[in-house]
């Protein structure tokens, strides 16, 4: 078997709040193989975001070890972690986190500008390609304020995948979206996952979690349950059903008016 993308062993995170110590994670072991699609679930304050921050190399564990794609993250400097994020990771946030008053294409191009490996030659062309991939080829010059929430999240996803990361981390990506748009976003994640990117999505909506292949339940900083989903739903199919239903409804409404 190939090396896992993620290998967490005994990861603990303690926040020092004055006198008291807040345990956000208490010994998490997690192994994720390439090509998996995982949903992390749990109630508020259970430590999901803390876990994602550590997986995303934005934060370092108090104890325990973290191997990302065979690279030891513990003991890395700030700069090394920044480079690692740029090279291996893509982030999608609940609040979209696009640069305001900056066009979609400029937002997507941004991670390419921080590349230090010299992998990318025509950064704008790559950004256009990524936006086209998420279905926004016609919105290149739009600013975030000129886009719907779903479209903004698509821009954010395009920004996350433009560097061809090994791992896509999404912390409640559908938290600010209505249910139909949420399913569309999940369809996009599934599509990217089928193309080979490992995806981890934090959510507390069971509806969303059913699109993952594996669900990890977190509680009080521990992994309570880690189980495979027997038959994951296909988000693309659900989107189609909703569309047909809506068409059906519209048709009935029209008939009633007539």
């Amino acid at each position, binding site marked *: 078997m190939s090396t896992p993308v993620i290998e967490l062993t005994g990861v603990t995170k303690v926040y020092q709040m004055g006198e008291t110590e807040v345990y956000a994670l208490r010994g998490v072991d997690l192994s994720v193989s390439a090509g998996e699609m995982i949903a992390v679930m749990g109630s508020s304050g259970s430590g999901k975001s803390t876990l994602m921050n550590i997986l995303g190399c*934005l934060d370092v564990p108090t104890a325990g070890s973290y191997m990302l794609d065979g690279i030891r993250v513990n003991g890395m400097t700030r*700069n090394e972690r920044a480079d690692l*994020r740029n090279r291996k990771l893509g982030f999608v946030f609940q609040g979209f986190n696009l640069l305001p008053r*900056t066009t979609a294409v400029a937002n997507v191009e*941004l*991670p390419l500008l921080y590349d230090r490996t010299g992998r990318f030659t025509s950064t704008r062309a790559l950004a256009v390609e990524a936006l086209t991939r998420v279905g926004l080829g016609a919105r290149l010059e739009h600013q975030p304020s000129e886009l719907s929430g779903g479209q903004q999240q698509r821009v954010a996803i395009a920004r996350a995948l433009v560097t061809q990361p090994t791992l896509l981390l999404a912390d409640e990506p559908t938290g600010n979206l209505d249910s139909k748009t949420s399913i569309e976003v999940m369809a996009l994640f599934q599509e990217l996952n089928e193309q080979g990117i490992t995806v981890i999505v934090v959510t507390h909506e069971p509806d969303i979690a059913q699109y993952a292949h594996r669900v990890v339940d977190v509680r009080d900083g521990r992994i309570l349950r880690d189980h495979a989903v027997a038959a994951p739903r296909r988000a693309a199919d659900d989107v189609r059903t909703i569309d047909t239903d809506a068409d059906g409804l519209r048709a009935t409404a029209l008939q009633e008016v007539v």
Partner: protein
Amino acid sequence: MKINTLLTMATSSILKNKMRTMLTMLGIVIGVGAVIVMVAVGHGAQSQIEAQIKNLGTNLIVITPGSSAAGGASQGAQTFNRLTIADADKITAESTLLSAVSPVIVTRTQVITGSGNWRTEINGVSTDYLTIRDWNVTSGALFTNDDVVANRKVAVLGSTIVKNLFPDSDPVGSQIQLGNVPFTVVGVLAPKGQTSSGVDQDDIVLVPYTTAQDRLSGFTFLGQILASAQSPTDMTAAQDEIRSIMRESHGLPNGAPDDFTVRDQTAIAQAATSTTSVMTGLLAAIASISLVVGGIGIMNIMLVSVTERTREIGIRMAIGARGSDVLTQFLVESVVMSLLGGLIGLAVGFGGAALLGHLMGWSTSTPLIAVAAAVGFSAAVGMFFGFYPARKAAALDPIQALRYE
């Protein structure tokens, strides 16, 4: 990150807040503008004075009769006028540090031609006079040593006289009368303009001093002796030398006061130059305080900007920006802003100086070094005052920055 990427990024974020950027740059604009105007006015005055010094003559030393130490209305000069041709000859013969010496006999009389007349000053001088005064003839030539030795009645006319008496012909070769003595015109002087006190230096006729003594003034005494030191560094030594030659010539015993005065007009003028240069420096220093105030304005806005854009910084860090990338970005922004302000200030300063020169009739000039210094200084201000906010931005924790509301 590539420098042009950085510059595009900086300009685009500066342009997102046009009004604020303009107001922030205003401090630098005013600072640089003020410095340029001050330097232009000061430097203009200085070069005007320098031109006047040069106009006086090359390393000019003036020997006048009477003691300056005697006080009051220089009674020595009135009691006995004791500057003679012999003194001038002795200085010429014995000095080692002078390149030219000329006695000057001053008298006033009427210049009469066939068509008109003109009252003017006649100076009886030697052939060295033009060298000392750094002066040229535009037509004909100065009289020769032979003319001086032979007391010939030859004259060189100043341009004001030519303008009034020979408006459309070359006077060289024509006959004129000075008082009732006939003279032949041998040359015309180049226009020299006014002295700093407004005297028209071109309203003059030069004749050999021998002829002047003989035919015009009847005095045997000289109004003054002019001399030229060989080099500016010899000025003091040359004056000391003249003083000792003069004392010997006048047979003054030790301890007796001088009955003549040796002056160095350039020294007076140079004092004026150094005063203006001190003034220029002082004014520029005051003006550059506003540049510092402008810099503080930039720092203030950059700090606000860092706080406002905390989330942006978090995003950039999350997608792989290093602390140094963020630092450079904010530093480039503040330098671009202050440099742009500096360039606009430069234009404003040049405009202001030109306007002031036009309205007040001052001559203004800006040395290139001041332009370079203004540009360099404004970039340095942006760098210096942008550094603290930029470092603050670079030190942010990405998670906290992302959570920032």
